């Protein structure tokens, strides 16, 4: 962290400029009143009708001045907030570059290591197959990381023109699980739909898959239980459909519930690199939820007690079965 001079600190500049504006406002008013009374006495001495010369109203002047100063203050405040946000994003981005480099370099290093080993030694076929298996996994990991970056770029550029189709979310989820079952070997994953009804919703299947993939892998990646479990429940409450993803993973502290959806954000310390991953997964999830007019929440009973991620979709967008409409 670069140690900039203390008097350039943004908070200090912010406070002093507010103080300066407030002070100038009081001085304006003070001088105005002063000059006015001075003028009045001059006029009185000259025996002129003061009402004729001083037609303007003191309170009007003060009011206009205050409004103008208020606008200036608001402007300063907005600039300050934006500046803070930019700084924060810059810090997060640097953190991201560090971590992402690690995420990319590790599989590459492993691949290179095994390739060079194969070039040097003639290993027994059995060993070869085992290490080739590792290499395939490393290549998968690399692809996964690259895809996440590309997904983000696609979503952020707003040029995402994926097809939106009306699907039953329960079926969609089951289809997803069937398709990628091999990725979640050794984990217990259950889908519950107690109401038994179907939930038709306009989704982009490609984006929805990214969302599910991130939630599924997070539940398993950040999990220290012997058998990672993920329970997915469909629930309606009020005017929303809640899809709860409940895992038995490492959980998260309450202070992180909202922060984890921020771009590049990671739980852990960046200075000694105990945080791992790209810090993009949940940000993608949240962006996709927003594209679908829904939102994400996170909750947990504390560290080590699992966590629950809920995707909340507005119910009015859900179409009851058989009632076909051709809007949107």
């Amino acid at each position, binding site marked *: 962290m670069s140690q900039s001079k203390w008097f350039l600190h943004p908070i200090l500049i912010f406070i002093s400029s507010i103080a300066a504006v407030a002070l100038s406002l009081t001085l304006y008013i003070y001088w105005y009143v002063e000059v006015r009374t001075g003028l009045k006495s001059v006029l009185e001495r000259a025996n002129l009708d003061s009402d004729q010369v001083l037609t303007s109203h003191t309170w009007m002047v003060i009011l206009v001045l205050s409004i103008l100063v208020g606008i200036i203050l608001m402007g300063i405040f907005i600039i300050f907030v934006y500046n803070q946000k930019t700084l924060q994003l810059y810090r997060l981005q640097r953190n991201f570059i560090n971590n992402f*480099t*690690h995420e990319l370099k590790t599989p590459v290093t492993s691949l*290179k290591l095994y390739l060079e080993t194969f070039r040097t*030694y003639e290993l027994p076929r059995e060993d070869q197959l085992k290490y080739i298996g*590792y290499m395939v996994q490393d290549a998968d990991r690399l692809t996964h990381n690259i895809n996440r970056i590309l997904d983000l770029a696609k979503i952020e550029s707003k040029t995402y023109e994926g097809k939106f189709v009306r699907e039953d979310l329960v079926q969609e989820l089951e289809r997803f699980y069937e398709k990628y079952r091999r990725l979640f070997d050794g984990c217990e994953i259950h889908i519950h739909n107690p109401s038994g009804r179907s939930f038709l919703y306009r989704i982009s299947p490609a984006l929805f898959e990214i969302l599910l993939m991130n939630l599924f892998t997070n539940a398993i990646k950040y999990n220290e239980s012997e058998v990672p479990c993920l329970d997915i429940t469909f629930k309606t409450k009020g005017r929303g459909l809640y899809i709860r993803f409940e895992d038995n993973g490492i959980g998260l502290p309450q202070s992180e519930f909202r922060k984890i959806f921020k771009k590049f954000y990671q739980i852990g310390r960046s200075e000694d690199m105990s945080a791992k991953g790209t810090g993009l997964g949940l940000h993608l999830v949240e962006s996709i939820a927003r594209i679908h007019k829904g939102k994400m929440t996170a909750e947990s009973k504390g560290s080590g007690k699992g966590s629950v991620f809920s995707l909340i979709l507005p119910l009015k967008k859900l179409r009851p079965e058989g009632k076909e409409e051709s809007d949107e």
Partner: protein
Amino acid sequence: MSNPTKSQILVVEDETHLAEGLKLNLTLKGYDVMIAEDGISALEKWKEWQPDLIVLDIMLPGIDGLSVLRNIRLEDERIPILILSARGDPDDRVKGFSYGVDDYLAKPFNLNEFLLRIERLLTRGAWSQRGADSKGNSISSLPRIYQFGDNRIDFKTLKADGPSGEISLTEQEARLLRLFIANRGRPLSRRKLLEIGWGYARGTTTRTVDNFIVRLRKYFESNPKKPVYFKSLRSVGYVFNHDPE
């Protein structure tokens, strides 16, 4: 126990694929290899197994690699350590070397280069091992006797003279003193003190550190209420102030 003629190498790496690949290659070269997956087990294995060389990753769960390095260097200056890290910027390398690493290789690396560097480090390690008459003598580059003010510490006999007369130091006190002396004038946070001095990970109470500081002040400060050497830094930790010159 392993064959005594084989060199023993401890590989500290949390990525299983990499760790196994390194182990495979080093074993094929005829070394005896053990893997540690995090900082805490690295320190345990280093103490129990007494390897001839350590290959160290920096990004580790629990205690990070640089703290592991500093922890080891407090007790053993001679064991060759090679850092193998995804971070290869000059700044990162300088940091590693300033904490006493012997060699630094950035990932992805060339396998042959890695193996040759290992071989070279082991050869040099063997020389310096032969140079030292016994293992006990090769503990640290710090002088055996350290003096500051009216205090005198003998790290060999673990005896010290302070304002309150002669004191027998415990191993842990001596360790902490070495850590402070090696970082003269540099602030040390409570967390770093725990990680490097004790080898504890996060979550351990930092009161332990404070209690030790109270003891060290009682030993070596003429007025423990107004410390001259072991100073507190608010919201940072502690700093050992002594300029030998």
